C-alpha cells in the first residue's frame, strides 16, 4: 500500500474570540496558508477535501452546505465528518491508500465563541432518558476524574501539575490563547466545579482554523522538502452509555493506540516515540490518556508529570504546544492542533519550543463530553 504524508499546514488563531472573521473567512485564511505551504493550487491539484464539524456546535444543520466555497472545493469531492479533526486526517489517509486520490485537504475549525450556551450544547448530546435530570453535563468529567484518581492512585496535585506545565509551555507558543505562569496552588485554589474537578482543571474554549494537505508518496516527494509521514492511525469508539462504560480507564484511547502501533510497527511506544500531544481537555485526561496509550504504566502518569519527565526538557515531552489547557480547546479542531504541533516539531519549525532530535511523534484526541471515543495518529519525519 502507498505511503502517505502531510505536506502542508495552515492555521489561523488561536484566540478566545475572533470577531473580525466570519467562519467562512476563517476557513479561507487557514486554507490559503496551507496551500501556500504545500505549494499547491486547490482548484487544480487537490483531488478531495474533508472537513470535520458538528452541526449544533456551528449552529447550522447540514454544515457541509457551507464548506466547499471556503476551501476551493467547489464541484469537487468534499465531505464532512461530524467527528474530531484527527478522523479527517485518517479519512484522507484511507482515500489516498485506495489509489483513488493523490492529494487530499483536511479542514477543521472552531468558532466556539459564537456558541452562547455551551452547557446546553453538551446537554443536547446526552441520552434523552437522562436529560430530565438537567445536570450540568460537566458532572461526567467530575465523576470520571473521581473514579480515575481512586483507581489509579493519582492525586489532585498531580493533575494540577498538568495545568501548570501546559500553560507554561504555551508561553513559548505565540498561537496559544491561555498561556500563563501559574502555581499548583492556583489550580488547587480555583473554584471547585465538579468535585474533584476545579476551574483550572478545565481547558477553556478558543477560536481558530486549521487546514492540512495530505498526499501520496510520489506527490509528497515532488512537492515537499519535509514531508511528514503518517506511520500509523487508529480510532475507536467505546460504549457511549454512561451506565455501562468503564470510568477509570480510557479504553477508546488504548484500543486506538494499539491499532496505530500495529500499523506503524511500534512495539515499545515509550522508546520508539519521542514526544506526544495527547488530549488534555481536562487536566486528568492527559494522565489517563498517557496510561491508555502505554506511554507509561497504569497509575504512573501522575509520577511521570511529577518527576518532570513530561516537561519540554524532560525525557518524554507531552503537550509542548501548551495543549488545550494552554492553547484553548478548539472544538472539532482540537485534535488538528495536536497534529499541527507534531508536524511543526518534526519539521524543526517549532521556534523557541523546538525539541531537539525528534523523529517520531504521536497526536491523540478525545471526542469531548459526553463521548467515549477518540483517535490517534503517529507521524515521522523519516
Amino acid at each position, binding site marked *: 500500500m502507498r505511503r502517505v504524508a502531510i505536506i502542508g499546514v495552515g492555521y489561523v488563531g488561536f484566540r478566545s474570540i475572533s*470577531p473580525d472573521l*466570519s467562519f467562512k*473567512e476563517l476557513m479561507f485564511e487557514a486554507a490559503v496558508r496551507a496551500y501556500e505551504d504545500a505549494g499547491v493550487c486547490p482548484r487544480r491539484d487537490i483531488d478531495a477535501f474533508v472537513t470535520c464539524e458538528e452541526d449544533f456546535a456551528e*449552529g447550522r444543520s447540514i454544515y457541509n452546505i457551507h464548506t466547499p466555497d471556503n476551501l476551493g472545493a467547489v464541484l469537487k469531492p468534499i465531505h464532512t465528518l461530524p467527528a474530531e479533526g484527527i478522523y479527517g486526517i485518517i479519512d484522507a489517509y484511507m482515500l489516498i491508500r485506495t489509489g483513488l486520490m493523490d492529494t487530499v485537504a483536511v479542514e477543521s475549525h472552531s*468558532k466556539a*465563541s*459564537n456558541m452562547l450556551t455551551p452547557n446546553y450544547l453538551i446537554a443536547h448530546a446526552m441520552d434523552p432518558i437522562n436529560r430530565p435530570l438537567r445536570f450540568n453535563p460537566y458532572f461526567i468529567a467530575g465523576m470520571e476524574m473521581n473514579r480515575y484518581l481512586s483507581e489509579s492512585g493519582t492525586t489532585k496535585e498531580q493533575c494540577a501539575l498538568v495545568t501548570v506545565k501546559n500553560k507554561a509551555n504555551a508561553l513559548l507558543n505565540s498561537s496559544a490563547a491561555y498561556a500563563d505562569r501559574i502555581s499548583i496552588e492556583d489550580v488547587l485554589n480555583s473554584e471547585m466545579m465538579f468535585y474533584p474537578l476545579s476551574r483550572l482543571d478545565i481547558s477553556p474554549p478558543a477560536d481558530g482554523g486549521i487546514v492540512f494537505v495530505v498526499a501520496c508518496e510520489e506527490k509528497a516527494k515532488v512537492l515537499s522538502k519535509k514531508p511528514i509521514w503518517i506511520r500509523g492511525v487508529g480510532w475507536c469508539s467505546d460504549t457511549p452509555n454512561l451506565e455501562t462504560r468503564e470510568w477509570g480507564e480510557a479504553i477508546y484511547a488504548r484500543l486506538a493506540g494499539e491499532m496505530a502501533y500495529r500499523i506503524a510497527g511500534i512495539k515499545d511506544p515509550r522508546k520508539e516515540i519521542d514526544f506526544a500531544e495527547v488530549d488534555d481537555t481536562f487536566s486528568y485526561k492527559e494522565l489517563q490518556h498517557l496510561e491508555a496509550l502505554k506511554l507509561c504504566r497504569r497509575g504512573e502518569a501522575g509520577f511521570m508529570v511529577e518527576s518532570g519527565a513530561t516537561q519540554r526538557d524532560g525525557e518524554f515531552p507531552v503537550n509542548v504546544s501548551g495543549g488545550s489547557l494552554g492553547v484553548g480547546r478548539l472544538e472539532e479542531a482540537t485534535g488538528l492542533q495536536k497534529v499541527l504541533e507534531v508536524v511543526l516539531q518534526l519539521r524543526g519549525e517549532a521556534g523557541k519550543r523546538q525539541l531537539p532530535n525528534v523523529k517520531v511523534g504521536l497526536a491523540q484526541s478525545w471526542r469531548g463530553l459526553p463521548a467515549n471515543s477518540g483517535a490517534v495518529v503517529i507521524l515521522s519525519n523519516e
Partner: protein
Amino acid sequence: MSEKIKVWPGTPLTDEDFAEKRILYTVWEPNLKYAWDTGIGYGRYFAELKKGKIIGTRCNKCRRVLLPARVFCEWCFRTVDEWVYLKDTGTVNTFSIAYTDWKADRIKEPQIPALIEIDGSDGVAIMHLIGEVDPQKVKIGMRVKAVWKPEEEREGAITDIKYWKPLEEE
C-alpha cells in the same frame, strides 16, 4: 433474501398513541443560542443594505460578480478585487407560490419566494420575496424592483428589503 423475511423490524406509532398516553416520551427544549460573527463580506453587505444599497464584489480573474458580497472568489480561490454597487432592480429567475411555512403549517396569504437576478451582476440571483402582485401573474423573466423598509426601521439585514414588486419599465 428479501423474500425470505417474514416480519420486517420496526414498530410504527400513531398520533393516537400519544394523545391517549399509550406511549411514554421525553420532551427537551435545547436552548441553543448563537452569535455568529458576520465578518468582512457580510458585514459590509449588511451595512450597505441599511443605507438602502445592494453591494457585491467582483473577481477580476473569472470576471464574475459575487453576491451576496464576499471577500474571496470560490471559483478562483483568491481574494476578490473590488466592491461593486448593484441596482435594486432585477429579473425573476425562478419562483414559487408557497402556501405553507417553514414548519409545514398552512399560511393564510401565500408567499412568493423567488430567486431574483440582480441588475448589473450578469445574472447572479439572491433569494427574496415578491409582493404587491397577483401570484398567478408572476412569471419567470418578470422584472422586479426592491421595496425598502423606511430608513429608520432598517437594521442592516436582508429583511431591510420588504419584498420586490413588479417593475413598470419606463
